[in-house]
């Protein structure tokens, strides 16, 4: 069996979604930890040092290519799978099973993912695009991401969109975290119990910390 056959089978596609999903979960850990330095209350010094390293050093630059690939594969394959799966039942039911069989968020991964994608586009327009285009090679000298955050998060609608984005992320992770490991073949009860708890904790804590960032700037909790 060729690699291409393996990864385009229904189970193979699950594996791709799970592997890219876990990769993106690892990215979230790095992202949330680096950004948490805004609460150092040092006028953004520590945050700027981190942002400068991530923006200028060659290692994160190379890893970023992998990150973009991971995002694109997860998003494109996710949308395609959602559409394919929906097409497998041409005529639906008059009465639906609904929450009697599964959790609403496990059935709404496509919708939640789309909401996260919309948030992601807004988010990248706010920070990633201005930052990467001002690395001294395109538009001008490096910009201060700390000042950018301070400015962007003064707008009420932006803060609301970011909080909603984090809310979608939380529910997406609530199913995705444990589901990814099931897909990779974890069937032992003791590991599944552990991963379930870990998944719930991660899904609450990480998006909550992310959501607190715009909220903290908006309410002026940061000096």
């Amino acid at each position, binding site marked *: *069996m060729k690699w291409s*056959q*393996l990864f385009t*089978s*229904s*189970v*193979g*596609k*699950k*594996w791709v979604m799970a592997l890219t999903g876990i990769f993106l979960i690892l990215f979230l850990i790095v992202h949330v930890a680096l950004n948490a330095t805004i609460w150092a209350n040092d006028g953004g010094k520590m945050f700027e040092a981190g942002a400068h390293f991530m923006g200028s050093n060659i290692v994160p630059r190379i890893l970023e290519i992998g990150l973009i690939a991971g995002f694109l594969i997860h998003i494109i394959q996710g949308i395609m*799978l959602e559409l*394919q*799966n*929906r*097409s*497998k*039942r*041409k*005529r*639906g*039911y*008059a*009465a*639906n*099973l*609904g929450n*009697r*069989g*599964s*959790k609403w968020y*496990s*059935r709404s*991964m496509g919708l939640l993912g789309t909401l996260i994608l919309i948030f992601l586009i807004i988010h990248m327009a706010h920070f990633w695009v201005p930052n990467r285009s001002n690395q001294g090679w395109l538009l001008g000298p490096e910009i201060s991401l700390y000042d950018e955050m301070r400015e962007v998060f003064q707008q009420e609608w932006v803060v609301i969109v970011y909080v909603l984005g984090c809310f979608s992320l939380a529910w997406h992770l609530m*199913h995705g975290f*444990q*589901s990814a490991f*099931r*897909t*990779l*073949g*974890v*069937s032992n*009860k003791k590991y*599944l119990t552990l991963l379930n708890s870990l998944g719930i904790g991660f899904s609450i804590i990480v998006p909550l910390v992310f959501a607190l960032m715009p909220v903290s700037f908006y309410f002026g909790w940061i000096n």
Partner: protein
Amino acid sequence: MEHTSMNLTLKVWRQRNSQDTGSFETYEVKEVSEEMSFLEMFDVLNERLIREGKDPIAFDHDCREGICGMCSMVIDGKPHGPWKANTVCQLHMRAFKDGDTIVVEPWRANAFPVIKDLMVDRSSFDRIIQAGGYISVNTGNAVDANAIPIEKDKADAAFAAAACIGCGACVAACKNSSAMLFLSAKVSHLALLPQGSPERKSRALNMVAQMDKEGFGSCTNTGACEAVCPKEISIENIARLNREYMMAGAASE
């Protein structure tokens, strides 16, 4: 014990053949005994329809004791009806109240086309089994059944997976119309036993390939299949299949 009977309104899916668009028809069924099974209530209704010179409602059934996997009705949106770990034939009318309106639909999935009314064609499941859901045994003297030692826990887990009756409720309940619970039960029950070991890799690869060909959706681990399974097949089997398949695929030539 006090005997009660009830009057019910049934909204039943009627479809002349696989080409027909089909629609719901409403039937008033009077004096239904609470001791009847759901299928017996349909028998009573059908006898009335025949007396009235109308076409009786076609539905699948065979053993009527919950072990053959033929009966297949989605009742008020739930495959096999409101009770847990139960088949339609073992669903009794005491599950309902006088005056209830019950919606009855066939399994819905492209891979299970409707033949007539509530009957669907599940031969896609047969073809998945033919693709590898068996073990090859040499002819000759029968081997002693207990010649191969099998760990009790493994035997129990294999037996729990083998309890799958292939009814297709998992597909009917799944938002993706995925057959993964069925397939994983079949792969697991053989993969857990030494007798299934020689064909372990080709079995997983061939059965998944056949499933994809039949037009079932892919699994997203929602767990709806497990919730409606009359034999309580665990979703853990799907995780085992994911592992079996990838190991086999990665190790193949």
